[in-house]
C-alpha cells in the first residue's frame, strides 16, 4: 500500500533525517521525495510504501502526528487514494 507523507512547518536543520528515521523504524520504504521552501515554510512530500510495515496505516498516521509534535512540525501520513481521488480522473 502506498501512502503520502507531508511535513510542513518552520524550516530548520534535521527535519528530513528525523522523518526518514521514523519511517525506517516502521519498516516503511520511501519511493519518492520532494522538498521546497515556501517563504520560510518548509514543505516536504514523500510517497512511501507501507506494505512491509507491521502496523496498520491509521496507527502509523497517529504515531507520525505525535512524532511531528515532538519536532515542532505537522506530519501527516495519508493513504494515497485520497489524493488520487481528488486530483486524477
Amino acid at each position, binding site marked *: 500500500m502506498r501512502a*503520502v507523507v*507531508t511535513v*510542513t512547518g518552520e524550516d530548520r536543520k534535521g527535519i528530513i533525517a528525523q522523518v526518514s528515521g521514523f519511517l525506517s523504524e516502521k519498516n516503511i520504504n520511501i519511493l*519518492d521525495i*520532494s522538498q*521546497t521552501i515556501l517563504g520560510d515554510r518548509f*514543505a516536504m*512530500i514523500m*510517497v512511501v510504501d507501507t506494505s512491509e510495515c507491521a502496523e*496498520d*496505516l*491509521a496507527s502509523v*498516521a*497517529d504515531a507520525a502526528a505525535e512524532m511531528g509534535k515532538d519536532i515542532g512540525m505537522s506530519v*501527516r*501520513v*495519508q*493513504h*494515497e*487514494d*485520497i*489524493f*488520487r*481521488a*481528488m*486530483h486524477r480522473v
Partner: protein
Amino acid sequence: MFNTGEVIETIDMIEKEHLDIRTVTMGISLLPCVRDTAENTARAVYDHVVRRAEKLVPTAEQLSREYGIPIVNKRVSVTPVSLVTAAFPQGSVLVALALDRAADALGIDFLGGYSALVHKATAQYEKIFLSTVPRALAETKKLCASVNVGSSRSGINMDAVARVGELVKETARLTRDGLGCAKFVAFCNAVEDNPFMAGAFHGVGEADCVINVGVSGPGVVQHALSFAPEADLTEAAEIIKRTAFKITRAGQLVAKEAARRLSVPFGVVDLSLAPTPARGDSVAHILEELGIETVGGHGTTAALAMLNDAVKKGGVMASSRVGGLSGAFIPVSEDIGMIEAAERGAICLDKLEAMTCVCSVGLDMIAVPGDTPASTISAILADEAAIGMVNGKTTAVRIIPAPGKKVGDTVNFGGLLGRAPVMPVHTGSAEKFISRGGILPAPIHSFKN
C-alpha cells in the same frame, strides 16, 4: 507522484477550509423485525440495528485516520417506523426508545426514520403513529422523525399538513427550547436514500442494508472563488463545478471503501453542500463571495440557483451513484453567515422561501416566536410543499416555535445545530385555509404516463 500543489491543496482543504465527510449513514431495513407485539418488535429492532451497524463507527473512524479526512457524523437510517408498527401503532414509542438505545450502544450521532409517508392520505395506523411523535422526540436523544405530506404525483395531504402544525407545537412544548423540533422535519417529495438528518429514512425500495455518504465543503468552494474576484458568473460556475468534483471524489472514495469493509452495498453519495456554524464553513458566505453584500438581499436567489446547479453538475461526474438531496443546504441556525444575516434582519422568511425554490431542500432550522399558531406553521409548510409539488423537487420545513421566545431572542441548540435568531412570521391568520383539509391536487404536468 502528485505535485506539491496538489498535495498541499488537499491538505489545506481539510485543515483550513473545513472539508469533511459530513456523514456516513447506514440504511437498515426494519421490515424483518416485525413481530406479534410492540414489545417483541422493539426487542427485535434493537437487536437487528445493533448487529447490522456494529462496525459502522469503528470502520468510519479507521477510514478517517487512514485518509486524513474528518468523518463528522456516523448515522443510521431505518424503514419508516409507522410501517413497522402498523399492527400496534399505539406501541410505536417502544420502538422509538429501542432505536435510541441502539444509537447509544453503537456510539452513532443520530438515527433517523421515526417517519410516516402520508403524501396521499393518512391511514388510521398512521394517525395514531403521528400522535406519538412529540412524546418519542421528548423521550429520546438521538432519534429523528419525519413526515412526507405531499408529492408531485399525489398532491398535498392538507389534513396531514394541519396535523404537522399541531405536532410541531406539541414537540416544542415537550422539549427544552423546542429542541425536539430540530429533529422533526416535514417533506414534500421526500427521497428514500437521504443520508442527512433530520429527514433520513431507509425507503422500502432500498436493499436490506446500504451505505450512503453525505459530503460537505462550503468553505472549499468559497476559498476557490476568492481567488477569482473578477471572474464572470460563467467562470465562477466552472470554478464551483471543479471544486464540487474534487469534494465529491473524496466522498465517493470513502463511501466505496466503507461499503466494502462493512460488506454492505454502496448506495449513493449525496452531493450536498452542508454548512456548520463554524466560520469558514458557510453557504451564505459563498453567495456573498459571489457579490451579494448580505445574504438575503436582492440577487441572493439567482446566486443560489447558480451555486446549486454547479454543485450538482460537478458532483454528478465524480460519483458512480448520486442521490439524496444533492444541492446547497440553507439551514439558518447551522450557518454562521445566515445566523448573522438573520440577527441583522437582513434575511426574512419570505426570502428564504424564495431561496428554497432553487436550493436542494427547504426552510430549515428556523426559529419563530413561541406563540406562533399551529395553523401558521401548517401554512408555512403548505407553501413549501406547494413549491416542491409544482416544481418537482424536494422541499421541507424544519421550524422551531421556541417556547417563550419572541422576535429578537436567540435559541441556542449547541453543536452542529447551532443557534437560531427568532424570526418574525406574518401575523395574518391562515386558520380558515388550513382547517379546510382535503387534498391539494397535483399539478396537471404530473400526469406523465
